[in-house]
């Protein structure tokens, strides 16, 4: 904690959890989808579902999907902006006792029909936790440069990828590996202390069996 966690952040109101945090969940979804989606369906849970209109949670998530930061004064006009920019959107109220009360599940489809799912929770003071990418349950908060590396669950994959990071002098702050089942779809979530460049992402993708990797820049 530092002084700017107490006097700050600079943000658009009214609520750090329901507005600023919601922008950040949208922003992560944009990064994972690889840019502005053609259409999104957003399912809201718990308090998000109850109070989203009054808190502008809907506008905030759309603003994040359009690439805005939590202090962007255009957030309150984001729904109109999305229509102008050709991003279709739909909101649904959902129920699930298992998830955090401030949770949004974003299903995005791009021009080619490729679907991306991102679920995130706003956990207080504008901070978030991403807890699902597509079919895989994950956990990261967007504070660091974050690499999402989907791969097949076979020996040697983790070593190959981490060696590439080591070669570039990039220190791993935190790393977790998730999988749907043994030998099935898997994903490395790697958070790094140093900035990761686009070329490194290409090198990682060139590693045998590694599918499209995603780089998320820090969102705080």
């Amino acid at each position: 904690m530092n002084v700017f966690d107490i006097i700050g952040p600079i943000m658009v109101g009214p609520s750090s959890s329901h507005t600023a945090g919601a922008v950040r969940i949208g922003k992560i979804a944009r990064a994972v989808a690889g840019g502005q989606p053609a259409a999104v369906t957003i399912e809201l849970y718990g308090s998000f579902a109850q109070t989203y209109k009054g808190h502008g949670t809907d506008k905030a998530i759309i603003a994040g999907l359009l690439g805005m930061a939590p202090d962007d004064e255009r957030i309150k006009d984001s729904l109109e902006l999305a229509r102008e920019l050709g991003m279709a959107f739909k909101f649904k109220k959902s129920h699930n006792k298992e998830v955090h009360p401030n949770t949004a599940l974003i299903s995005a489809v791009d021009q080619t029909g490729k679907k991306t799912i991102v679920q995130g929770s706003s956990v207080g003071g504008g901070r978030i936790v991403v807890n699902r990418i597509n079919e895989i349950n994950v956990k990261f908060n967007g504070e660091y440069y974050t690499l999402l590396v989907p791969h097949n669950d076979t020996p040697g994959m983790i070593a190959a990828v981490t060696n590439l990071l080591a070669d570039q002098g990039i220190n791993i702050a935190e790393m977790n590996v998730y999988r749907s089942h043994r030998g099935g779809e898997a994903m490395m979530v790697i958070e790094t202390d140093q900035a990761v460049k686009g070329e490194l992402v290409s090198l990682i993708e060139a590693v045998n069996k590694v599918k499209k990797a995603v780089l998320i820049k820090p969102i705080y």
Partner: protein
Amino acid sequence: MISYDSIQELVDKAKKKGKMISELVLEDQARQMEQPQEELFEQMRASLQVMADAAAKGLTAVSKSASGLSGGDANKMRQSVDAGRSLSGKVLSETLAKALAIAEVNACMGRIVAAPTAGSCGIIPAVLLTLQEENDLSEERVVMSLFTAAGLGMVIARKASISGAEGGCQAECGSAAAMAAAAAVELMGGSPQMCAHACAMALKSVLGLVCDPVAGLVEVPCVKRNASGAANALIAAEMALAGIESTIPVDEVIGAMKAIGDAMPKSLKETAEGGLADTPTAKKIARDILR
């Protein structure tokens, strides 16, 4: 390095070094964040500018929030002050107007600085900006006083809470008032110990205050509690500057706030299930908004 576990420790260190709390906090934070002091100062100055812009915007605004529950009251307050109809003196009336203004800008999705939260964002700027105007103080001194507010706020956040969901409104508007009171004392030339007494006295006045937002929105009663929080800060600062001391030391007051927050039922901690949120009018408002 400072651990921010005790306000008295901050006061003692400041006294020992012959510095203001703000100087101590700025030095320490620059060291901890591994950045030059000038950069931290600049970042805080940018925050003060956002606060001033929000106040100016809210004082003349007539628009309503998305729910229709807030907006326009700061303008009424300002017009009343401008017309010379202040009941309690210009400083207090101007402070109330700014606190309402910034809280309304927040409710209307405008840009604010969470201080320490969005729901309590009007209190600290209203007090400091009004004192600046009324006493012709330099921007530099006001920026520095924000480091005092933040330093004390870090202790409150570590030892108790600054979240309504965890500790009720005492933790949000109460903490903001306590931080504003201490910053105001420093701004007006009081000693570090006086800052601590002001912080304690402001917090003591609102111990037990619950967080009961109507329909779960940061509007009713939040906007007006920003006004009362700012008034509370001025009262505590005025008493401290007169040499009045808090019988219970500030760190113990913070401990009491934590215990009260823990004992508070969940229905009174931002869930919109109790208190004002559970009144017939609030329930009708909630039904209308959800429709």
